[in-house]
């Protein structure tokens, strides 16, 4: 019905979408979830010197309800898995995840009985930041990449993304 009858969007909707994307990508409020060493580098990225707030990540939001981007910095152990999943479930849509550090990406050096081998086994990840730990610049670059990704979203017409993939 209505605009959905067209394949693609009209001018108004696509402009509106651009506006929304512009808004979303310019203020990704992070939920800093630092569990280990990478958390310290994440702190450095948020503190003076690197100041991630310059890119719109102004307000670290410690409540998952008000956050847009989950920055998972550090090792996730198997004991922690339910907690991480619950935090992700609590975040409101739209939500994105940055996996910071080798541990979050793949388990890193800890190939042991108690470490989760990559958080993508539990929650979907948008941007991976390799490194042990990544430099703060790495995290900032990941945030910029995420912004690019958000800009290509279709918030008003989610099927379009699927359609595009199909073509």
């Amino acid at each position, binding site marked *: 019905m209505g605009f959905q009858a067209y394949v693609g969007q009209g001018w108004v909707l696509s402009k509106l979408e651009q506006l929304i994307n512009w808004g979303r990508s310019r203020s990704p409020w992070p939920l800093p979830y630092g569990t280990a060493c990478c958390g310290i580098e994440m702190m450095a990225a948020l503190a003076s010197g690197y100041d991630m707030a310059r890119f719109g990540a102004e307000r670290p939001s410690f409540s998952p309800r008000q956050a847009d981007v989950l920055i998972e910095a550090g090792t996730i152990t*198997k*004991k922690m*898995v*339910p907690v991480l*999943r*619950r935090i992700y479930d609590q975040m409101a849509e739209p939500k994105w995840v940055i996996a910071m550090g080798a541990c979050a990406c793949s388990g890193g050096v800890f*190939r*042991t*009985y*108690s470490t989760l081998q990559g958080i993508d086994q539990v929650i979907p990840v948008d941007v991976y930041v390799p490194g042990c730990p990544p430099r703060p610049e790495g995290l900032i670059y990941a945030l910029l990449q995420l912004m690019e990704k958000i800009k290509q979203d279709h918030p008003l017409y989610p099927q379009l993304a699927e359609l595009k993939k199909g073509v």
Partner: protein
Amino acid sequence: MDFQERVKACVGDDLVSMTEFRGDVSVTVPRTRIVQVLTRLKEAEGLKFDFLSDLFGVDNSALGKGKKKGKKEDEEAPAAPKPPRYEVVYLLLSIEYNHRLMVKVQVEEGQMEVPTVTSIWKAANWPEREVFDMFGIRFKGHPNMKRLLMWDGFPAHPLRKDYPLEGEGEERRLVYGDA
């Protein structure tokens, strides 16, 4: 009297063996006598081991296997009487005299129970729980003998030598409604 003599005198009849390696003296005492020995060591004049620095377990079942890797013949050698599999090590320190001592008890596989020393040092609380968690050795009289590092319901004792490094596929999932 030098240090070792004094320790020997203090441990007295409970001494099973005493070794020294690179300046670290360690004594082995019977499993059931550990509380008495440690109390004596804590109070003895000239020793005063009043600080429990650490407490942990060791699994000796794979001792000596690393060396012989690849050599099959050795395995057939007549086995000496097997020493007990586990060891609990108490690291003591004397604040006053600045010396250290390792006290060990040996734990057989069938009798996985050691008297707790939490009555002497409160510091033994978590380390004892950790030993239980990692090796399955129970401490008799401990106020809260639960797992410490792994979650409740974890099926194995990971620091045992026969447990693989990468685990046996244990998982913990989120179940809604669970605490």
